[in-house]
């Protein structure tokens, strides 16, 4: 009875040693590190992509309308819009002082003249998409949440970023700064963020 047990034990030990040797060949410390890096790296890549996206979303050109205030903001210092301009029921101004009263489909050509683009407006009051005052993580979660982003899926965010109103941020007319990334890079990083899992910072 003792000899067969020893034999079995030896076979088991041998199998274990063989398995460890084989594992050592295929899962070297370098290979293990690569696997870990890939799984963590995708998340890190997504976070990095969103931070780039957020650098645009938090620029004055975006924040001045993506505000929780009752009306738009103005300028690179985000001061309240002159003339007590209000968001209105549809985001396009109050009943008799519509955004279109002053904002045309293109920028006024003179310094401090009204900027313009097609569909000039704020987000509507029921989904104000307000980012001003939020952390980058909070903005990220708001951007992903259909209840807060105008009922958009993640892929739906891309067409919004291609609208003439959003593109205006890169052609804001004299006296206004542009976002820190080019529009092309901004959309590219947004797509990268979505494709890598749309991770959000804490």
């Amino acid at each position, binding site marked *: 009875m003792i000899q067969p047990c020893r034999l079995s034990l030896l076979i088991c030990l041998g199998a274990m040693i063989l398995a460890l040797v084989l594992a050592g060949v295929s899962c070297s410390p370098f290979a293990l590190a690569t696997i870990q890096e890939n799984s963590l790296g995708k998340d890190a890549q997504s976070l990095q992509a969103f931070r780039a996206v957020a650098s645009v979303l938090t620029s004055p050109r975006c924040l001045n309308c993506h505000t929780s205030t009752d009306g738009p903001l103005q300028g690179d210092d985000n001061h309240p819009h002159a*003339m007590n301009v209000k968001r209105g029921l549809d985001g396009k101004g109050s009943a*008799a*002082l519509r955004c279109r009263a*002053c904002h*045309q489909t293109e920028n*006024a050509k003179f310094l401090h003249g009204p900027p313009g683009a097609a569909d000039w407006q704020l987000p509507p009051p029921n989904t104000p998409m307000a980012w001003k005052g939020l952390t980058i993580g909070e903005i990220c979660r708001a951007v992903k949440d259909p209840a807060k982003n105008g009922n958009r899926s993640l892929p739906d965010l891309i067409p919004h970023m291609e609208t003439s109103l959003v593109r205006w941020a890169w052609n804001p007319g004299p006296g206004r700064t542009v976002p820190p990334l080019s529009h092309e890079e901004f959309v590219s990083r947004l797509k990268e963020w979505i494709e890598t899992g749309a991770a959000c910072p804490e």
Partner: protein
Amino acid sequence: METTRFKVNDKPVELQIDPQTPLLWVLREQLGLTGTKFGCGMALCGACTVHVDGTAVRSCVTPVKAVAGRQVRTIEGLSTDRSHPIQRAWLQVQVPQCGYCQPGQMMSAAALLSVNSNPSDSDIDDAMAGNLCRCGTYARIRKAIHMAAEMARSEK
């Protein structure tokens, strides 16, 4: 130069003009409708307010190409016989002092009443905040708008 067609106070207009010409210039220089005033030229004061398809706009920053095919209404076209409630109330309250800003004030007020038959003080503030009056006739403007609204409601 381009051919631009639109209506002003219900009359068809056809002009050979640079499409970027401000509507205010067209109204005053080409069409002789000098009731609409030049104030700041930058959409900051409201003196040049007219209606385009019923919506108040600042004609000093509106290129004429933007009104192609549309209806423009100026202070001259608010009514042909001073019968618009805004005109009657303005006279009754004697709103103007120097009067320069008043065509713009009246066009904004008329735009407000076209969408809100019983505006509150707050509604009036929101609608009229873009129309400046250096004489300070704001209190009379507010009173006249309330009066005009009441006139319009009682005549329905």
